[in-house]
């Protein structure tokens, strides 16, 4: 359909000025498919769903226990680094560094935790298929918190408050077996992180106004953001991968960011992630999944390893994206403007040498780059309504 719509007015009897008498909406008009694409990015927030793989998901005592653990540096081997040391609430639970630095430097940018419960794969390479396994990973990584299963279990056993909170969450005091206690700690951490959600954004207000035919409400969306949105769902086709209410398809792509992690070292991305998630004792096919039906394990059961996965990284959500700089798996792009410029000037030869053929350089003007940045900034909630808020 080539007929163009001027905002939502055209959705109601083809009027440019709505029945409310609002001023004509500034900015570009949208085609009917573009309107559908915009509506597909909501509604927000989504309804709560507990995680069947985690028996304490959504349990208030476990959420509180998890929050306590999240902020407890004793879980690291030297007692100096907590989860919250790198996942800072004002930065949408990122750290502002190009690459994370726990006990030592790592190769990847710290991912945010807001809306993390809605992911299918975790980490830049998807090496975990559930949030509790992903929560266990940094506790055991020598570059991050440097512990092991015995250390994690011992911290909980040795502290009266943690021991009581554990008993309250799991119905019995921590046992003498390290592994189940450490996995339970990870499940409490997951229960807390499931509550971290981004709030309503200027884009959500516009999207919902569009949905209900509210010209006046839609007109409040700034014109630059509106023009950027038109690029996002139009010329840029950004929504091919950044789709749905979370602005991600939850999968993995190569977007031309170098995968050299350092001299002589490469980050294989999803290629290694598939191998690791299949091999993990803590995946959803393993013995610690609390979902006895294993219906939660469908993706893990069927995930394919492909040569093209080399150098692919997870498509991140764009919600709260203005707070999560720097960007990309290696933190190599400092600002949203740098990100948009990257897509504008892609090296096509590098991209299509051996892989999927999706991206084309957008060749954006400076004004278009400004507009796309304005749109991306409209995907962040106000600070008062930001990711520190609880979804439950």
């Amino acid at each position, binding site marked *: 359909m080539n007929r163009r719509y001027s905002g939502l007015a055209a959705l109601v009897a083809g009027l440019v000025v709505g029945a409310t008498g609002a001023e004509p909406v500034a900015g570009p008009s949208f085609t009917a*498919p573009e309107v*559908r*694409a915009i*509506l*597909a990015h909501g509604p927000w927030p989504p309804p709560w769903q507990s995680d069947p793989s985690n028996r304490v998901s959504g349990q208030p005592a476990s959420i509180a226990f998890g929050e306590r653990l999240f902020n407890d540096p004793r879980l690291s081997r030297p007692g100096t680094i907590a989860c919250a040391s790198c996942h800072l609430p004002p930065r949408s639970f990122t750290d502002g560094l190009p690459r994370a630095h726990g006990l030592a430097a790592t190769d990847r940018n710290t991912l945010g935790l807001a809306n993390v419960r809605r992911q299918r794969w975790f980490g830049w390479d998807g090496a975990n298929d559930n949030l509790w396994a992903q929560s266990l990973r940094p506790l055991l990584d020598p570059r991050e918190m440097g512990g092991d299963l015995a250390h994690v279990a011992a911290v909980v056993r040795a502290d009266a408050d943690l021991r009581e909170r554990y008993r309250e969450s799991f119905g019995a005091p921590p046992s003498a077996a390290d592994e189940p206690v450490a996995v339970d700690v990870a499940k409490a951490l997951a229960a807390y992180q499931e509550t971290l959600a981004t709030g309503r954004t200027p884009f959500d207000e516009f999207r919902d106004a569009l949905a209900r035919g509210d010209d006046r409400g839609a007109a409040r969306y700034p014109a630059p953001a509106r023009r950027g949105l038109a690029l996002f769902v139009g010329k840029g086709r950004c*929504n*091919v*991968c950044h*789709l*749905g209410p979370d602005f*991600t*398809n*939850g*999968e*993995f792509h190569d977007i031309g960011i170098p995968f050299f992690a350092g001299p002589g070292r490469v980050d294989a991305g999803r290629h290694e992630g598939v191998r690791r998630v299949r091999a993990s004792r803590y995946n959803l096919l393993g013995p610690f999944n609390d979902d006895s039906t294993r219906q939660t394990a*469908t*993706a893990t*059961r*069927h*995930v*394919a390893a*492909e040569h*093209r996965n080399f150098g692919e990284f997870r498509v991140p959500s764009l919600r709260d994206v203005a707070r999560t700089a720097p960007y990309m798996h290696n933190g190599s792009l400092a600002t949203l403007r740098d990100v948009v410029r990257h897509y504008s000037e892609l090296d096509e030869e590098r991209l299509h040498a051996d*892989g*999927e*053929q*999706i991206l084309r350089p957008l060749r954006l003007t400076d004004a278009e780059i400004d507009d796309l940045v304005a749109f991306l900034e409209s995907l962040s909630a106000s600070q008062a309504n930001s990711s520190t808020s609880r979804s439950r």
Partner: protein
Amino acid sequence: MDARARQVNAFPVAVAVGTLLLVAADASRACGEALRGTTGRAENARYEIVFAAVPAPLAAGKLFSLDLAVCPRGGAAAPNALAVDATMPEHRHGMNYRPTVVARGTGTYRADGLMFHMPGRWDLLFDLVTPAGTERLTATVLLE
């Protein structure tokens, strides 16, 4: 695969608001009439495959299954097995998942573990293992 087996049945597909509308199989056909919901079809001179997505409608980035019925035509032998896959020809990639297919008897199958991870044109590929060789039937799906 012989020359005839290379025949591709591309389904024209209509897309409505938030809904994938496959060109419906002729309701009067016996093949796949027990399938629920909107169905699609792939066919050649010797076989017809009718399929229905579960859950429906399809959504980009969401795992789904297919219920399938395979119906031989003109005296063709029943297939020994069925494999299901999908590709996105314009993007030169397939799915990120490898479906499994389980026979449910009387020419019906269930395929689990499919995902179209982006909108656009997808080709569903059905490989029928028959006594005469493997035949590929194709159905095109346009996902908004």
